[in-house]
């Protein structure tokens, strides 16, 4: 009998007698990972197909979008362009070829940069990752305490204010907020730089992770680190805004939910300090919801980054996706979409696994 069987047997046996085995269950099962992996493959296929169709049915011509004025009026140049990117093949043939290359890990060559899409994505992903991570950290660090305050001051002025502000924060489009913030903090006040990841001519730190702040720290370049943080702070804050608002509202709801639980009253009846009860019992009870919403916020950051990166000249995945879409750079669009799909799926997977970690009652996938 294996250990796993033993513990399972104990689970169903109501009368557990004698010594209980000390064990720490793994929060995920193998079957769960396999299932999720297969689902991811299917999802990616579906996404590529839809994006492929959409890119091809729109009434625009990549040749005229990418060729210069002179070349555009030269039928031979246009024909050569179309032949190079197989634009005259049937749709299904094109899609089949795309899949075939994809199976070999080849996303094709970007029309715009003339580089393999895969290496373009690899170049730009760290920049977006840096931005997104910073944004979600800000969202959690600000949103959770605000939500807590809002719940504890329920129906009092502070609560009303926070609820109004958070509703506004959720409704305002991030790129518009970004433009306003640039106008104020860069143009008027000069507190932050106007865009980019480093000052013009600034030398990026040696690449370890591709995230400038982290790399600068790892390689001990404090000056570069300060510069990078300086450039990061405003776009990250703009991207964090909807997340802060979302977390404020959901943390408020979760705390109000948990605070009326019996176990909170029981903890108070034990004579624990209110701050201990709030921290250890209430906030802990609210973590599953906070994790869900943080995952949601992180996923939203990737969507918002498409326009916000453009506003802040941040050369990440978002601006890459934007520029590829405008230029009808199909291979790049497909690559960017695939990449964002994978990020989405991964975030969801991480959220599900974290449930099992924070809540011992949940064994993910069973």
């Amino acid at each position, binding site marked *: 009998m294996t250990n796993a069987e033993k513990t399972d047997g104990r689970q169903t046996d109501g009368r*557990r007698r004698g010594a209980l085995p000390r064990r720490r269950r793994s929060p995920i099962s193998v079957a769960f990972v396999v299932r999720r992996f297969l689902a991811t493959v299917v999802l990616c296929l579906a996404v590529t197909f839809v994006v492929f169709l959409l890119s091809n049915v729109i009434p625009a011509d990549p040749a005229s979008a990418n060729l210069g004025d002179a070349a555009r009026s030269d039928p031979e140049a246009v024909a050569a362009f179309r032949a190079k990117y197989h634009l005259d093949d049937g749709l299904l043939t094109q899609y089949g070829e795309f899949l075939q290359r994809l199976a070999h890990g080849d996303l094709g060559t970007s029309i715009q940069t003339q580089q393999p899409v895969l290496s373009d994505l690899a170049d730009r992903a760290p920049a977006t990752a840096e931005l997104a991570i910073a944004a979600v950290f800000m969202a959690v660090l600000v949103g959770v305490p605000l939500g807590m305050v809002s719940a504890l001051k329920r129906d009092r002025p502070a609560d009303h204010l926070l609820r109004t502000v958070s509703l506004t924060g959720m409704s305002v489009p991030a790129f518009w907020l970004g433009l306003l913030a640039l106008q104020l903090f860069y143009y008027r006040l000069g507190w932050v730089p106007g865009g980019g990841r480093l000052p013009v001519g600034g030398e990026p730190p040696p690449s370890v992770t591709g995230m400038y702040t982290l790399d600068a720290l790892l390689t001990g370049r404090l000056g570069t680190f300060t510069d990078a943080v300086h450039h990061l702070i405003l776009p990250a804050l703009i991207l964090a805004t909807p997340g802060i608002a979302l977390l404020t509202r959901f943390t408020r709801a979760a705390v109000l939910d948990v605070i009326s639980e019996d176990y909170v009253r029981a903890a108070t009846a034990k*004579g624990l300090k209110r701050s201990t009860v709030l921290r250890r019992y209430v906030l802990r009870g609210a973590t599953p919801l906070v994790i869900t919403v943080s995952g949601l916020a992180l996923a939203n950051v990737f969507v918002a980054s498409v326009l916000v990166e453009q506003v802040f000249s941040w050369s990440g995945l978002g601006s890459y996706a934007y520029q590829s879409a405008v230029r009808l750079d199909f291979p790049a669009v497909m690559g960017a979409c695939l990449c964002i799909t994978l990020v989405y799926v991964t975030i969801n997977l991480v959220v599900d696994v974290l449930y099992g970690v924070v809540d011992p009652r949940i064994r993910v996938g069973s």
Partner: protein
Amino acid sequence: MTPVLEIRDLRVKMPTPRGHVTVVDGVDLTAEPESIAGIAGESGSGKTITMLAVLGLLPPDAIVEGSARLAGRELIGLPERELRAVRGRRMAMIFQDPLASLHPMLTIGRQLTDHMRAHLGLGRAKARARAVELLAEVRLPDPAGMLDRHPHEFSGGMRQRVAIAMALACEPEVIIGDEPTTALDVTVQAGILRLLDRLRRESGVTVVLVTHDLGVMSALADTLSVFYSGRVVETGTAGTVLRRPRHPYTAGLLAALPSPEAKVDQGVRPIPGTPPVPGDRPSGCAFHPRCPHGVDQCAVEVPAPVELDDRHRFACPPDPFAAGRTS
């Protein structure tokens, strides 16, 4: 003997959308040292609210008046800081549903030690050692192995034993058990009650036992107070109250008990009508609309309690069950 817990004329008004409503109306209650003081009554009769009021656990907008003394010290109106030093340390509480009253995501060890560390200033290792002792004291198997596990891994009876161990942790003078067996299987209830009884004898703790189960009362309680609609309608030693009830409500509760011999449709006589909702209490004696012995005066006057020589008190002036009278 000086009572450990003495509640005098306790009144609680709870906030509702239609203003404050009196849910506890002049309750008197006494618990002698090392006794089990039973409190019986239907849901909504104010039993639990009374106990929560004593520990200051009601929402801040509840209005609490009257007196509740723990070993002579007034608790009502005590500042939060001082109440905190009483809660869990001198007076602990066991709640009805152990699954709901234990935090599902924290380990048993954590929940068993955090108030010991706060109240007794124990270090982590000492608190854990004491936790193991406590779990053994409430007769749980493999106490050391339990500390790092979570409540959902145990049965209801085991969880309630954990809750009792938590209540015992700081050696309080009084433990309030708020229907501690109601959520448990019948087969498990007896074990929990025997445990409480043993702890009372061994560690000299006073137990206030809130339950609507009169069978439990007759087996365990020394004294019994019967609540109806926020008032104590009858109180005395458990034996007297259960054998010779003087209040029609107590008599009705006893008649409503199924006895093992009688078939349900013969032996059980339910009390007609439904208990009043707080805020919509009948005038005079709140029980009068359901009482088979009521007289005109009952609907008008709130009955004053009558005290007999053996500390048996009841609030029913017509006294239909007086000795020599047949009802």
